[in-house]
């Protein structure tokens, strides 16, 4: 609506200008004709009048041209009539444009000021990873130089091999952490963000030295504390063992001693699991890869479960392949043992547990499915956290500490494997480990026929 009216305004302005122009030309023609009629020689007078008018217009045009070119917007030339109106329109357009320009410039300056005060470093990268812009923090942490480094590829200046690899891989879901050596060591976490369809990338860099130190302290504390707790416990349980076997022990003391033995055994298991977990966390990448016979391992574990007094009626083992894995045997053994003992623990005696080992184009897989109590969907994401228990009271009765799945997760990570959990409350759960094809090794000798 307003647009229509403004366009009508424009038309009326334009027609006003045209009308003014036409009336002026008419006036000049009329005047020249009148003087020519009085003085005789009408043609000459007409030519003279129009010529003068034309000269005046040319002069106006020249001045207008000069004004537009040199843009002294605030001082438009003083014209009368249609030229004046035209200059007013042009001046108005200029002023509006300048106002917008000023606003954008202010916005940009404000943005720069804000980003330079940002706690994180930020840099904008172009199509070929060349630096387009970066703030002060990025300048300091990545060793860049203002202005001079714009246009240089980021990987030429930030040369950490881990970062270059991250940049080349093109998968920016996680960040990469690099160690900056210098007078002081700094751990930098670098994250790239790329919007869908955009060729530019945003680089965000953060100093995570503090977090890494705290993490290291926590790991050291757990490792040291568990280690220190173990030696006194060995002494206590040793004497308790001797006491329990003592035939001369008074009858009233027998039950308390048995209970003390059970509890000290529980504590020993907890400390062992903590130590195992901290070993998994602290040891770097897997170095001693050996061939692990998964089929043999699973058969042994099944036999152990079958000998338990309280267990589900059916324990099925299905071996579709006889391939082996390359990795650390003790770690893989604890992964499988934890998964199977969890399934056995949470499945009632009339239920069943299915263990399956198979191979496809994506790698090798192991699944442990049970018909137990199942896990609610909201508990699934937190299941592999340390000491996380869906129902603390129940799992303590069954002798669990909430460390088993944390151990499974860490050991699998070290073998480049992933864990998926499917579960439904009341129906049962299915834990599946996926090992990549690089981890599969052929058996040295053919397996004995049959499962």
């Amino acid at each position, binding site marked *: 609506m307003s647009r229509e009216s403004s366009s009508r305004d424009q038309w009326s302005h334009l027609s006003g200008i045209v009308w003014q122009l036409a009336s002026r030309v008419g006036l000049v023609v009329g005047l020249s004709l009148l003087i020519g009629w009085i003085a005789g020689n009408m043609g000459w007078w007409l030519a003279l009048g129009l010529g003068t008018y034309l000269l005046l217009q040319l002069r106006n045009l020249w001045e207008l041209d000069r004004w537009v070119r040199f843009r002294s917007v605030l001082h438009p030339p003083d014209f009368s009539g249609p030229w004046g109106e035209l200059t007013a329109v042009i001046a108005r357009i200029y002023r509006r444009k300048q106002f917008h320009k000023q606003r954008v410039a202010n916005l940009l300056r404000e943005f720069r000021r804000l980003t330079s005060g940002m706690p994180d470093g930020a840099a904008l990268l172009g199509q070929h990873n060349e630096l387009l812009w970066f703030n002060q923090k990025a300048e300091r942490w990545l*060793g860049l*130089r203002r202005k*001079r*480094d714009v246009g*240089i*590829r980021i*990987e*030429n*200046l930030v*040369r*950490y*091999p881990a970062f*270059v690899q991250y940049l080349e891989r093109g998968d920016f879901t996680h960040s990469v952490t690099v*160690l900056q*050596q*210098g*007078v002081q060591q700094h751990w930098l976490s670098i994250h790239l963000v790329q919007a869908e369809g955009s060729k530019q990338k945003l680089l965000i860099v953060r100093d995570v030295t503090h977090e890494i130190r705290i993490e290291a302290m926590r790991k050291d504390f757990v490792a040291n504390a568990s280690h220190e707790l173990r030696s006194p416990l060995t002494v206590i349980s040793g004497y308790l063992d001797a006491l329990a076997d003592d035939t001369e022990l008074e009858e009233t003391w027998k039950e308390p001693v048995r209970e003390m033995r059970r509890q000290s055994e529980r504590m020993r298991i907890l400390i062992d699991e903590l130590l195992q977990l901290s070993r998994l966390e602290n040891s*770097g990448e897997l170095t001693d890869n050996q061939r692990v016979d998964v089929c043999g391992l699973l058969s042994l574990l099944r036999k152990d479960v079958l000998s338990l007094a309280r267990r589900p009626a059916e324990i099925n083992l299905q071996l579709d392949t006889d391939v082996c894995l390359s990795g650390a045997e003790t770690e893989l053994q604890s992964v499988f043992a934890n998964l199977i003992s969890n399934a056995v623990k949470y499945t009632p005696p009339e239920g069943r547990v299915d263990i399956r080992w198979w191979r496809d184009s994506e790698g090798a897989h192991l699944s442990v499915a049970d018909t137990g109590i199942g896990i609610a969907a909201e508990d699934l994401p937190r299941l592999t956290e340390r000491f996380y228990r869906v129902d603390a009271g129940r799992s303590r009765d069954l002798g669990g500490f909430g460390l088993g799945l944390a151990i499974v997760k860490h050991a699998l990570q070290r073998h480049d494997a992933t864990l998926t959990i499917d579960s439904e409350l009341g129906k049962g759960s299915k834990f599946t480990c996926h090992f990549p094809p690089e981890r599969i090794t052929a058996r040295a000798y053919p397996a004995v026929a049959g499962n």
Partner: protein
Amino acid sequence: MEKADLSHHILSRFNADLERLRTSVLQMGGLVEEQLANAVLALVNGDTAAAEKVVRNDHRVNGMEVSIDEDCNRILATRSPAASDLRLIVAVIKTITDLERIGDEAEKIGYIGSRLATMERPADRYREIKHLGRAVEQMVHDALDAFARLDADAALAVAKRDRMVDEEYEAIQRQCITFMMEDPRSIRRAIDVLWVARAIERIGDHAKNICEYVVYMVHGKDVRHIRIEDVEEELKARSSSAAS
């Protein structure tokens, strides 16, 4: 019109080739920097595993040298570059040789570090080595930055720092001799420390060489075996005469 487009296309591909060459040299540099830093850190911390990892990773540096060398030969054969492009390629061929040597020295430090880790550690915990190592790491880093930025002034500033490294090496040498005279049982360890200091000092020399190639690349002037002050004066005179 079509012809012009074609030549433009070839040129831009040539440019892309050169740019990729520069990037891969700097990536090799990044790997060498990390190797050096890890080697010195492993030695100072007495970390055998980290030191052995440095030794194991040296083949990656060697592999990169071979592949970049091949790229240079291919560009020389197919594009026959001239002027600054030719200077870039010559500088690259020389730079990767020096980088590879730095990698070898880092490997040596890692090797000695894994041996020193099993011995008794001195009271100062290799503080001098750590300090010298930091200085040289920074030199390598700044030399590569100058290479990336084509910054001849920064390159000269880095080359000047080599003298300080040499002095510090002398100091460590004297200190080791004192140790050996005081306590003959420490001779074995002191010799190892001397080897490490020597390796670090050599790395400083290689970093200086890289800086000289940067000056060559930018100004087309060979500045090897000339005092740095003379080079600076000549470059200044040249730029002022060019300006006037």
